[in-house]
């Protein structure tokens, strides 16, 4: 049976990180997964956790209830959204009093959270649902010889006790996907370091320093590029790379791509359709097909 998911876009991807959304919409359906656009979603709530955790829980439950109304499982390509939705399920499944309280408020919008539906992220959707063999079948232009670092993003790895898309200390799924595309994945000591984005709201300079430090380490190790799978991480590593370089007094020029962009290139899709002109890091250095 063809797999079908509600695409839960969140905030950052559909309002500025368009390359992620474009590349997801180009690649995932070709791999036999139907993506359904659903009206009425809101923020997942995760960015508000420091302000009011109950608000986070309510917003997540509301979004899950909308998916439930359409009898759909959820694909959340953002690591923050994926954590908020998964954690919400975990809390509501264990705390029936809280579930009752949330549901009594959701009722005003004609919504209810009752069943725990599947919530996937890009990494486990590709690795566990689509599968490496199927990805290999769709590779038309193997990216042989490229040496690339994977950045997972904290929120898809931890906390493992609620179930995350990959191992918290030694994740390998992105590397395995990269190998299927012909890429040589490169391990590096800073692999689990944070991108800094969660501090963007109140300590932007420090946030960019984290970004700069990680990119600098990658550059010094002679790794050709980095792939990421979260619009927040990408905003830091790609969109703000020049600024991040200023905070560590380095001229950074590390090409940064979404995993789905690289996947699309290997599948023979044009750079334009994958939004590669929107990457602000020097992706043209990789000389991938039509990318200028």
């Amino acid at each position, binding site marked *: 049976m063809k797999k079908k998911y509600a695409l839960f876009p969140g905030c950052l991807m559909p*309002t500025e990180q368009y390359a992620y959304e474009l590349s997801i919409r180009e690649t995932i359906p070709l791999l036999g997964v139907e993506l359904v656009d659903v009206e009425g979603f809101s923020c997942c709530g995760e960015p508000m956790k*420091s302000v009011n955790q109950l608000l986070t829980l309510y917003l997540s439950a509301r979004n899950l209830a909308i998916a439930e109304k359409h009898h759909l499982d959820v694909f959340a390509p953002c690591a923050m959204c994926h954590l908020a939705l998964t954690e919400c399920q975990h809390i509501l499944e264990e705390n029936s009093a809280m579930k009752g309280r949330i549901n009594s408020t959701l009722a005003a919008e004609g919504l209810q959270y009752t069943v725990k539906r599947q919530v996937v992220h890009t990494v486990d959707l590709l690795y566990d649902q689509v599968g490496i063999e199927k990805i290999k079948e769709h590779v038309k232009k193997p990216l042989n010889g490229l040496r690339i670092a994977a950045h997972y993003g904290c929120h898809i*790895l931890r906390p493992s006790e609620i179930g995350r898309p990959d191992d918290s200390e030694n994740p390998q799924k992105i590397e395995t996907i990269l190998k299927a595309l012909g890429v040589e994945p490169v391990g590096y000591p800073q692999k689990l370091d944070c991108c800094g984005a969660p501090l963007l709201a109140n300590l932007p300079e420090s946030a960019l320093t984290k970004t700069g430090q990680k990119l600098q380490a990658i550059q010094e190790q002679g790794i050709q590029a980095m792939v990421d799978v979260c619009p927040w991480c990408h905003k830091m590593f790609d969109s703000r790379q020049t600024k991040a370089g200023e905070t560590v007094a380095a001229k950074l020029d590390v090409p940064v791509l979404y995993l789905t962009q690289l996947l699309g290139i290997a599948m023979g899709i044009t750079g334009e359709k994958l939004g590669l002109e929107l990457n602000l890091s020097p992706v043209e250095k990789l000389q991938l097909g039509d990318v200028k």
Partner: protein
Amino acid sequence: MSIIDLTSMGEPQTDLKKELNDRLTKLQDEISDYCFQCAKCTSGCEAHKLLELEPHKIVALLKRGLINELVNSDVIWTCMTCLKCRERCPQRVAPVEILFALKNIAVASGKQIPGKYTGMLQSILSMGLIQDIQQTTTRTNKTLKRDELGLPPLSKPIDVAKFQAGIMKIAMEKV
């Protein structure tokens, strides 16, 4: 209705503050007791390397009941929520959760919310997302918006009044 209602010391907030204090008392009584100060949390802390956050000390201060001092300190706002402390704690103490509770109490007691959190919250209340559609720039300096890239309309709450009412209810009602 405004963000003031959600975050100020206004009357309806009493219940929220009580709930938050109960949550912290629970963390203090039941969870921080397990901490034996191995500092594994601090050794892996992303904010420690850069901003000198020391999660094991946060737990120790909480255990000693120094809640006001913690709530009024800027250091609680340096956590990057990388979740490594929660993952690696051998005693399942989860300093990151203690920090979230402390920040929530700081907000509920009317302390100024730092940085862009207020703006994001206002945006969620008015249209459901932390920001509306932004213009983006290509490497060749063309400016583009969502619709010009052929992407479908943004998914956001349809009845904003009802959406807001839900948020206000959940954030302020009695437990």
